[in-house]
């Protein structure tokens, strides 16, 4: 039996969704694209002679090495802490929350551990990434843009942490060739947690690795 022949008239344009939607098959398929008649007609478009010149182009292309499409694009969210631009892989990011008061607890040393904040009703540990990485604080004049302050809520293997940032750049899609190894000149503290560098809009951004970051932060709490 031959494969389904295309109908003489384009039924999708007459009784289908592109027509008056009177086709009874629409009850089953909802949209013409789900119907085998439509897809068969689409496939049938390929049953036509190869256009002149096209075969030549295809032959040439077939002789070249296979183009393996990079389907693994990394995604990261870039942010600024003091003068440093950093990023974390998107799966590590739970939320970019509005800046809110952090209640410091007594008997905890200031510095890395900032306190607790209420994020969506959950009490969340807040840390200072700037302090943890030893980043220099900018003079108060430069950190005027308080409207951009955010609290980044991150996660790793079930653990949650939040840290304030001065600015969030947003999600960045990265191709593997964009990622550079961290240079030796970077501060040792930052380098330990940086998996790679990439450039985005004139900034050189350090992509942090969640695992060593969480492990080190956990150690500093105990």
């Amino acid at each position: 039996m031959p494969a389904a022949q295309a109908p003489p008239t384009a039924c999708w344009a007459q009784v289908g969704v592109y027509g008056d939607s009177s086709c009874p098959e629409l009850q089953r398929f909802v949209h013409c694209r789900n119907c085998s008649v439509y897809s068969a007609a689409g496939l049938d478009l390929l049953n036509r002679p190869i256009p002149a010149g096209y075969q030549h182009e295809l032959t040439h292309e077939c002789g070249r090495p296979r183009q393996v499409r990079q389907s693994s694009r990394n995604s990261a969210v870039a942010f600024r802490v003091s003068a440093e631009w950093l990023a974390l892989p998107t799966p590590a990011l739970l939320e970019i929350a509005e800046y809110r008061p952090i209640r410091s607890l007594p008997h905890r040393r200031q510095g890395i551990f900032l306190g607790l904040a209420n994020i969506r009703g959950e009490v969340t540990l807040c840390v200072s990434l700037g302090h943890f990485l030893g980043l220099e604080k900018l003079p108060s004049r430069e950190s005027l843009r308080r409207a951009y302050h955010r609290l980044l809520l991150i996660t790793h293997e079930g653990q949650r942490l939040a840290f304030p940032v001065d600015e969030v750049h947003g999600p960045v899609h990265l191709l593997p060739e964009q990622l550079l190894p961290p240079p030796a000149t970077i501060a040792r503290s930052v380098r330990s947690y940086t998996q790679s560098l990439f450039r985005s809009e004139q900034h050189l951004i350090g992509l942090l690795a969640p695992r060593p970051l969480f492990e080190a932060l956990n150690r500093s709490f105990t």
Partner: protein
Amino acid sequence: MLFLLFHLGPDRYALQASHVIEVVPLVTLKSLPHAPAGVAGMFNYRGQLVPAVDLSQLTLGVPAAQCLSTRIIVVNYTGAGGTDRLLGLIAEKATETLRTDVRNFVAHGLKLRSAPYLGPVMLDPQGPIQWLDEKQLVSGPISRFLSANAESFDSSAAVQA
């Protein structure tokens, strides 16, 4: 199991998708002098010379139509001496795949001596689909021709299109 479907004339056939290295368009073939019927020529596949067998010519005696839906299915075959070689199968309407249970293919009891590569058949609402075993495709005169000319296929000299 996933199958690549194609046509030989009006009938549908299935090839095991895991055996397919790549499906490329019907490129211009370089002719092979004194080639047996069915060997349509050779082409430059990613820098390697690969022979092409026209399945329609081989089984029906009619060359495959020069359409966009006619494509070359690149597979492996074991040549003389046990080495794996590439082979292009020119097949019409090689545009669909089908995922189905292998048990749906039922032996029909007719083993054609002349076509040992034709296997069990599956009944599909649109008609029967016959399993094609490309490993059994290369036999007799074609096999002898390909092994005799193996050295020219082994070279990576690019064919001038």
